[in-house]
């Protein structure tokens, strides 16, 4: 009986080891990247030589080769970020559809919100001053009476 239990346990262990080895082998083979996988990265890049054309929609042969390059690197296990970093190292930061935050590119991210905030602050100040001005105008004393104007108005009243 004890011998049978030991044999069963050994068989179960051998089966588990076989299953683990097969699963590991399957996981080691990266699946072939689909077009959607490739375009997920290509969409974040511009064609290195065309003007402002995203790499996923660029129709040239050169762009097809760059997309093939992305596919090969994905198949070799590269992550999206590694591929993007490779393209930047190879073709410069201008290939990124979203500018980096390094160097003068930081201005692209900082200036628009600063300008919007500055504009809102300017309008707030303007509206505040405009609201204060009518109150001051109401409190101003009436101009002194002009005797000539009073005489003129009296004559006009009499002629009616």
């Amino acid at each position: 009986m004890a011998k049978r239990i030991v044999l069963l346990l050994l068989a179960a262990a051998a089966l588990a080891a076989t299953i683990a080895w097969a699963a590991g082998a399957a996981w080691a083979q990266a699946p072939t990247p689909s077009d959607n996988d490739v375009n997920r990265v290509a969409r974040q890049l511009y064609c290195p030589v065309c003007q402002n054309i995203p790499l996923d929609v660029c129709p040239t042969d050169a762009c097809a080769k760059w997309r093939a390059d992305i596919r090969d690197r994905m198949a070799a296990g590269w992550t999206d970020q590694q591929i993007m970093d490779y393209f930047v190292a190879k073709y410069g930061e201008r290939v990124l559809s979203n500018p980096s935050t390094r160097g003068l590119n930081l201005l692209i991210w900082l200036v628009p919100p600063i300008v919007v905030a500055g504009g809102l602050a300017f309008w707030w100040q303007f509206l505040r001053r405009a609201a204060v001005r009518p109150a001051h105008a109401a409190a101003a004393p009436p101009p002194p009476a002009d005797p000539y104007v009073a005489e003129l108005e009296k004559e006009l009243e009499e002629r009616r």
Partner: protein
Amino acid sequence: MTDTTTAPARVRWWQLFIWLGVFAVLGVVAWQLVRSRAGSLHVGQAAPDFTLTAFDGQTYHLADLRGKVVVVNFWASWCQPCRAEAPDLENTWRHYRDRGVLFVGVGYADTDTEALAYLKGFGISYPNGPDLGTRISQAYRITGVPETYIVDQSGRLAFAKQLPTTQAELMAAIDPLLNK
């Protein structure tokens, strides 16, 4: 008599900050505009220095090549006019290789696989390497490929062509430099 003197207007720090920011952005825009209008390089200018690591691993630094005539050619495998001039470049290189002339090919915006296939296909034997980050292309302000520049022994541009070149043109430019 009323006192007509008024207190000086006080500049708030945030107003100063905003104006400084505006002038800084305008300064950057102006600088970029000046750069973009600089145009192509021309003969007589000092050749921009560069370092190129060739596909065979050798590194070439232009400043270290003083005393030699250096022909710098920008190309790409996807560029048809580059393919047309490739045999002329190789033939010219073979004519001058032992006479103090170095040809250097700068691969512009190309994959390594295609670039190496291009070089093998045309039997190019002079050093070629990828222009990583397009730094060399930007330094030379190229507007496309192919473009060819010849740097004389003192580091000045003796020839600059923003179109395909020919063996005859290259030899006409190189011979006077070697006969100085």
